[in-house]
């Protein structure tokens, strides 16, 4: 059973995936309040009665382009309290950038394959609902390949970059320590160094800021 029962609006134009997702969420004890097939209906439903989390596909009718992303941006602007989890078929970070342009926290971008790893998917969903940022490991891997020589991340050591990448996936220190096979204290030290090198203030959610710095390059 999940930490808490979330009320969810699901936007996905493929009936097959809509039902698959709904059954996974159902089993996990969440309430799938509405399922919709296009961005306009999504906005209407969310405005009428805001849910805890919106899960949306990127590509939806009528244009089959990035309607889902635009709807997500609109929801974020109007109702910042709602967590948004975007499901996508694209690794390209151009989609991610447009999602992260205006927002901090409570946001996720996952490849659709990830849904099949049910436990991890549900954990990501909880993180988004709690205001965390979750980015698909595949996308993170690609981003990691890019930012080597310039930008604010140049000051970080390879190990610190690794830690930051795992933070971007939405992991907590314990999970990062487990992944890298080091102690949690060592991870805390790395995280502290990252915050210092990126010159992040104490007051804000530094974890989110660090991830955003990372993702924006």
């Amino acid at each position, binding site marked *: 059973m999940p930490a808490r029962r979330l009320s969810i609006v699901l936007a996905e134009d*493929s009936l*097959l*995936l809509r039902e*698959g*997702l709904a*059954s*996974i969420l159902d*089993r996990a004890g969440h309430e799938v309040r509405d399922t919709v097939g296009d961005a306009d209906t999504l906005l209407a439903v969310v405005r009428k009665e805001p849910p805890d989390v919106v899960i949306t596909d990127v*590509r939806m009718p009528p244009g*089959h*382009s*990035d309607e889902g992303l635009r709807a997500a941006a609109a929801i974020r602007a109007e109702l910042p309290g709602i967590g948004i989890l975007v499901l996508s*078929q*694209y*690794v*390209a*970070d*151009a*989609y991610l950038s447009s999602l992260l342009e205006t927002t901090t926290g409570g946001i996720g971008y996952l490849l*659709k*394959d990830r*849904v*099949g*790893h*049910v*436990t991890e*998917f549900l954990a990501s969903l909880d993180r988004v609902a709690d205001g965390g940022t979750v980015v698909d490991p595949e996308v993170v891997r*690609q*981003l990691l*390949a*890019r930012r*080597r*020589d310039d930008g604010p991340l140049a000051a970080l050591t390879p190990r610190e970059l690794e830690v930051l990448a795992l933070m971007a996936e939405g992991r907590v220190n314990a999970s990062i320590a487990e992944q890298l096979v080091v102690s949690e204290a060592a991870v805390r030290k790395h995280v502290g160094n990252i915050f210092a090198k990126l010159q992040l203030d104490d007051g804000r959610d530094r974890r989110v800021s660090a991830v955003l710095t990372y993702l924006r390059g």
Partner: protein
Amino acid sequence: MERPNTAWTALSSKRYLVSSWPWRSYAYLLSSVPVGLLTITLLVGAAALCALLSPILIGILLMASVPLVGVAIGVVERWRVRLVVPAGVPSPHAAIPGGYTRRARITFRRRERASMRALGYGVLLGLFIWPLSALFGGLSAMVLGITVATPVIASFEEVGMGPWILDTTSEGIIFLVAFGPPWYIVSSYIVGALAAAEAELAKAMLGPREEELRRNVAELRRSRLDLVDAFETERVRIERHLHDGVQQRLVGLTMTLGLAELDLPEGEGRRLVVKAHGEAEAALADLREAVRGIHPRVLVDHGLEAAVREVADRSPLPVSVRMSLPQRFPTPIEAAAYFVVSEALGNVAKHAQASRCEVEGWVSGDKLVVTITDDGVGGASLEGTSGTGLTGLVTRLDALGGTLDLSSPPGGPTRLRMECPCRLDD
């Protein structure tokens, strides 16, 4: 021996008199008589019909379709002129664009200037050309015929030839030998020159003018562009088809398998389901890769720069991307540029032994310029096995009016430069 290809070169040839050219010239001149008579009958008939019916609307409508008679005359005359212009005269008419109804096709033809020109030629043919041809060709043929027949005729009755009277076969033979050859020589040149002049006129009036040739070239370019455009549209359609069909189904499959894993107890069954799940994910990854090679979605949604950044990110060596593109470009142009970068980066990774690579893109005047530079070993060429993908792209760029240049001295650096007009029409 080389065959002369116009009547004029045939005339200046030493072998003119023993070639088939004099006879071709006769055939050309004499065949103009029936064609000319038919033409003038048709034209006068059409004019009369129009005049007769002009009080009612149909006469005026008929008048508009008279140029079509010109089209028919042109067809017959271009065929006939092959007698003295073996290479033939190309048709000046434009290709009728596809998808026209019968009515629209007729309208298209009768409005062409070439049709009016052919009609004008028809009038000349009907009024002047055939009488002139008949006079010279007919007269000279008749004299030649009688000369040849003189020995036979003279054996039956007296033949008066100017001051002479021939009344025996032998006198006839003497006349034939004395008068025949000179007459054949003189008349052959006269008839040949006349046929050549008429053929020249037909060529000028029934052949394509320069602007018509230019227009045909423009049409070809247009249809090639249409083809490239259709090709790209089709790729976008295939991509969408894969995305909405197979990809969704595979994702659905991974979800179902994921749920099954949760329910199954540890054991062989669960191990197999986990394996199946992994295979389904691998298939999905492969499919994603294939779709990217067909037409990457990010190119449609976010344009060239985002798509190039993505392909650069996937490259095993560090690639820096510097692009300043103020606007989006038509789909076939973006696609061509994207695939040039994608192919080039693939080649750099495979063959160049480079440590880094740089992709730049900018607009210069009305051209999109993209360069890919690496610090590898050089010695690359657009031909050969390493560049097969690029050779296909050269063809594609060519249709868009663009170029691809490669500079790759041994030892490097290698620089590939693509230039392409920013717009599809010109």
